[in-house]
């Protein structure tokens, strides 16, 4: 057994132990932190599989932003899991065992790791992506080429999913001014009932304040780097959007929601959520107008399909980044905002 296999086994063991701990633990704050650890270990496993882009996404989404969202949700509800009566447990256990057994059974049919004679390796499309992309698109990171150009439709679909999810969360969590309430804005009246809750701002922690101020420009710069460097290294719109959102969320946590909302007011966020999707789809429409197919970037730069592809990928990734960042920020604001105003 070589070192890599040993490392894989170790990481899987930690993964399984974390999953078991999550199911056993009743304190949900601890469970949220363990879920974050789970994502981090999973990201390490993805790195071991050389899937750096996926690992990056997993680390940014699972270990980063979603943990904060979990915690801000827990601040609104009870933080202890209710105990399920023992006799109600066995149907769920049965389902879990059946599903797990089926998956284990199905995994018998998987080819051995790295086998050269699988359909994935032999299908001609593999050659198209790995060899022809250097000619047609000319960027080193094939993942980005596949994601944004060859599979542009799918990525647009994913972005629309995120857009829809963001809109749904905002629709559910936003409380509009009550029609019979002359003063409107219930959010301004409510904090008085729980003055403590509203005033708990981490800005009292001087070290935290100074350090987060110090790090903020670097976080934003790193997000831009990930976005624009996605053609050369791991990264791209999704990861950049997540990092950007994480920066804003950190700002909101440390300096208080009101300050963060002043920086990024709600109308601006709403516009940005739509703007990213529109930018993506707009690139497609521009292709149509220039005489190509939808999301066929070749025509963006007449005479130089390669430059057109690169421009198109950059624009599309920017659109993805804008929408992802805006949706995550808006979701965080609405969760945290409820905590403050109730």
């Amino acid at each position: 057994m070589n070192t890599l296999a040993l490392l894989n086994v170790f990481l899987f063991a930690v993964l399984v132990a974390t999953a078991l701990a999550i199911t056993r633990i009743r304190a949900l704050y601890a469970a949220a932190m363990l879920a974050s650890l789970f994502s981090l270990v999973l990201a390490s496993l993805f790195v071991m599989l050389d899937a750096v882009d996926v690992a990056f996404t997993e680390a940014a989404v699972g270990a980063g932003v979603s943990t904060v969202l979990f915690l801000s949700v827990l601040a609104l509800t009870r933080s202890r899991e209710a105990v399920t009566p023992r006799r109600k447990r066995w149907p769920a256990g049965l389902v879990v065992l059946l599903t797990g057994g089926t998956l284990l059974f199905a995994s018998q049919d998987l080819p051995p790791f790295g086998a050269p004679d699988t359909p994935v390796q032999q299908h001609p499309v593999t050659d198209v992506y790995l060899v022809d992309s250097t000619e047609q698109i000319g960027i080193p990171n094939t993942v980005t080429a596949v994601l944004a150009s060859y599979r542009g439709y799918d990525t647009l679909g994913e972005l629309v999913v995120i857009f829809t999810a963001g809109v749904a969360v905002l629709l559910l969590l936003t409380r509009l001014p009550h029609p019979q309430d002359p003063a409107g804005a219930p959010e301004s009246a409510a904090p008085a009932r729980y003055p403590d809750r509203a005033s708990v701002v981490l800005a009292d922690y001087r070290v935290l304040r100074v350090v987060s101020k110090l790090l903020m420009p670097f976080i934003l710069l790193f997000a831009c780097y990930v976005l624009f460097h996605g053609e050369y290294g791991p990264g791209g719109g999704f990861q950049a959007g997540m990092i950007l959102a994480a920066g804003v969320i950190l700002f909101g946590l440390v300096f208080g929601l009101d300050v963060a909302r002043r920086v990024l007011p709600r109308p601006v966020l709403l516009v940005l959520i739509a703007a990213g999707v529109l930018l993506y789809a707009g690139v497609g429409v521009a292709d149509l107008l220039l005489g190509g197919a939808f999301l066929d970037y070749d025509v963006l730069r007449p005479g130089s399909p390669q430059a057109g592809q690169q421009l198109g990928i950059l624009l599309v990734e920017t659109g993805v980044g804008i929408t992802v960042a805006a949706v995550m920020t808006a979701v965080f604001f609405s969760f945290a905002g409820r905590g403050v105003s109730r």
Partner: protein
Amino acid sequence: MSLDLLLNLATGLLMLAGGGFAVTGGVGLLRFPDFYTRVHAVGLTDSAGAGLILLALLLQVPDWGTAVRLVLIMLFLLVTGPTATQALAQAARRDGVRIWLDGERDRG
């Protein structure tokens, strides 16, 4: 060749020291009596353990780009680790977590 050997030796030593700090931190997290001492132990892992391991990696870099990235990661860890530790300890103090005094029994 002898420079390579020296570098490898230094890397190994730094790795060992970093790993030692990490293990010490883990043991401290499990064995120390109260919240503050435990935070102290974990803080050691964050800064000294990770810092030394990164330093060891820095001796093995193939090019400048990697070196710059490693240094940036190290600076980031050096800033964020102690900050997190300090924030945890301060939050605990605000919450009224009592400090363990010598001679007391362990409290879980």
